[in-house]
């Protein structure tokens, strides 16, 4: 399968190291620059930052597949048979992420529901919520952590 002579192939290998290394450093640099670690007070907008990092990562993936895994030297049919199926993932990504976003919004909306209609009633105190090893989405659900306690108020269905 050696389509390059030995010396040229060796050069490709070492060039791969340089390219992947540089791209990785650029990615980390963008992450740190964008979040204000490098120049004080300087931030990149998120879409710019994310998009450039995704593109650079896709380039790395391309390089690994085509050079390191020798895809470049395979017949087009093989290349297609391996790469085309991954197109299916595009719709999966759209659908799953859209769904995740929906879950978020519906939980937000649940917060708007009047407290007495919710499963767990709010504790009614200062918002100083006893700490459970639970996540911050909790306050968003309108399900305060103390309703998990036995002495907490049960849902409407259990109040009487």
């Amino acid at each position, binding site marked *: 399968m050696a389509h390059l002579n030995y010396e040229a192939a060796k050069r490709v290998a070492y060039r791969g190291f340089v390219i992947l290394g540089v791209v990785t450093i650029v990615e980390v640099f963008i992450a740190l620059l964008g979040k204000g670690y490098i120049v004080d007070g300087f931030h990149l907008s998120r879409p710019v930052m994310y998009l450039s990092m995704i593109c650079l990562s896709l380039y790395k993936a391309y390089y690994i597949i085509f050079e390191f895994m020798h895809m470049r030297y395979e017949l087009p049919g093989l290349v297609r048979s391996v790469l085309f199926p991954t197109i*299916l993932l595009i719709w999966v990504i759209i*659908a799953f992420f*859209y769904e995740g976003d929906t879950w978020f919004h519906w939980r937000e909306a649940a917060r708007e529901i009047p407290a007495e209609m919710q499963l767990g009633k709010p504790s009614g105190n200062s918002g100083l919520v006893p700490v459970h090893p*639970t996540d911050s*989405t909790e306050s968003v659900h309108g*399900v305060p*952590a103390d309703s998990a306690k036995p002495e907490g108020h049960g849902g409407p269905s259990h109040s009487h």
Partner: protein
Amino acid sequence: MSVVQQKNMETDPLIRDLGHDDHFHAHHHGDKYQTNFLTTYIFSQDHKMIARQYLITGVVWAIVGALMSLVFRIQLAYPDADVSWLRPFLGKWITLGDGGVGRLDPEFYYALVTMHGTILVFFVLTAGLSGTFSNLLIPMQIGARDMASPFLNMLSYWFFFLSSLVMMYSLFVSTGPFSGGWTAYPPLSALPQASSGSGAGLTLWLVSLVLFVVSILLGGLNYITTVLNLRTKGMTMWRLPLTVWAFLVTAIIALLSFPVLASGFFLLIFDRSLGTSFYLSDIFINGQALDRIGGSPILFQHLFWFLGHPEVYIIILPAMGIVSEVMAVHARKPIFGYRAMVYSMLSIGFLSFIVWAHHMFMSGVNPFLSNFFVIFTLIIAVPSAVKVFNWLTTLYGGNLRLNTQMLFCIGFVSMFISGGLTGIFLGNSTIDIQQHDTYFVVAHFHVVMGVAAFFGMFAGVYNWFPKLFGRFMNDTLGKIHFWLTIIGAYAVFGPMHYIGLGGVPRRYYRFDNFDAFRDFDDLNQFITIAAIVTFFAQLLFVVNFFWSIWKGRKLTEKNPYGSNSLEWTTPVNTIHGNWPDKLPVVQRWAYDYGKDGKDFIPQHKPMEEGEEDSSH
């Protein structure tokens, strides 16, 4: 060598003169594989033996799964009947009430429904169907000595076997097998304390299915690479019999969808065993909020149905392939629209990956997103219809041999049409609001997938039984089997559409506490009786099957049906490596029936002077 054996090994002159010498006997394999009982019958690496193993394991599972359905059908039809006579089989799951009246334990009712679904979908119609016929037919029909990697092929079966053992074992644990439905939705499945079946039963269920995924992947890798690399000389892709195309597409779908199921299962295993919350949020148990939040049960449904929908095509495509091939042979006509058949299979394969959420319209999927799933789902009707019309056109004006396998092919088409139509109802999210989780859905998928795939499988078994066991199955018994089965199937599932439209929900233990459903008591009893009759009709098949293995009419000629494909050029008694000497070289497509006044022209017969290639 006896005379019979010599006749058996006699080489086809066409293969002798035009065949391709791959120096089979000079290689290290040859008959070394089958030197003792263990390597011949148990740890065999021969694709034909592995096919038999898959088939027989599948038959055993089919009987187990069908018996389960009888038990819960009896419960549904006669919820007050005394079933203490089942105690010898089900033991403590039949509880004795006042005056010794035996009742089916409700928890066990759910376990039976769950196991029935799992067993039939995965073990019978996936492994038993695609495993059997991909193994038997791929190498023989493409002119290969065996699978690309016989060793991995053997492993594939043994992973399936192991998975079967674990599932079988789970039936006997004291807390009962898993009972949350074959789709294993969280939170019931994510919380071991949710029900007794969600404990050890589900753990074993998950282990079993992870092993099953391994088996499917090992098998699928083999099927794909074998079809690609091991076709004999002259066997272009457009000359492949439709069976092989179907197995290829099936294997590709399986290779891409089962891993995602495995991802979903791994996350579920973590939720269950290590207390993560990938699928849990906002759960209240006895009024107390559970401390496991931030995940989503819908996430599991997405991961599950990303396999789940392709899975239904993994089940039906091999049946479609078998039907196309058997139908052409016994209609003595080329299959109509060969390329359209291939393209429709490919597009079904593609579409099956983008429609999964049509199972989740009522789960709270974003309604805007649902629109796309509706559209994609309805588009599947197009390639499906193309196939149906091609089958009908193949039958039209054919010189039909109405033997058992042909009857089952016709039955398949009938079932597929009936079930496909109800699919179009369900594919519309607005209509699905009414019908989701009713018996209408149960009827839909049993007709289109359950019965139709079984018909494809029966057609295949009756047709290739001589290649599997060197004997024929009894045709008269087979025809009786067919008629009882098709009438029975419609009798069972037809009324289910009706009660489903009436709103009767699936997965309920009994309906007589609901005024709205009381009217359906008679129909439920009718369905149950029809199911029992249909079950006994299947015993005809089982008896026929095992009797014919030893006592059936012997196969005496190589090509009993006048078939074109290569498996009928192999010796009457199959041998390791399939062809004794050279490999056949393929000269034409597989469907030259009734061409130029000839009844059939085998694939390895060269084109004659002036003959037109009919393959396009």
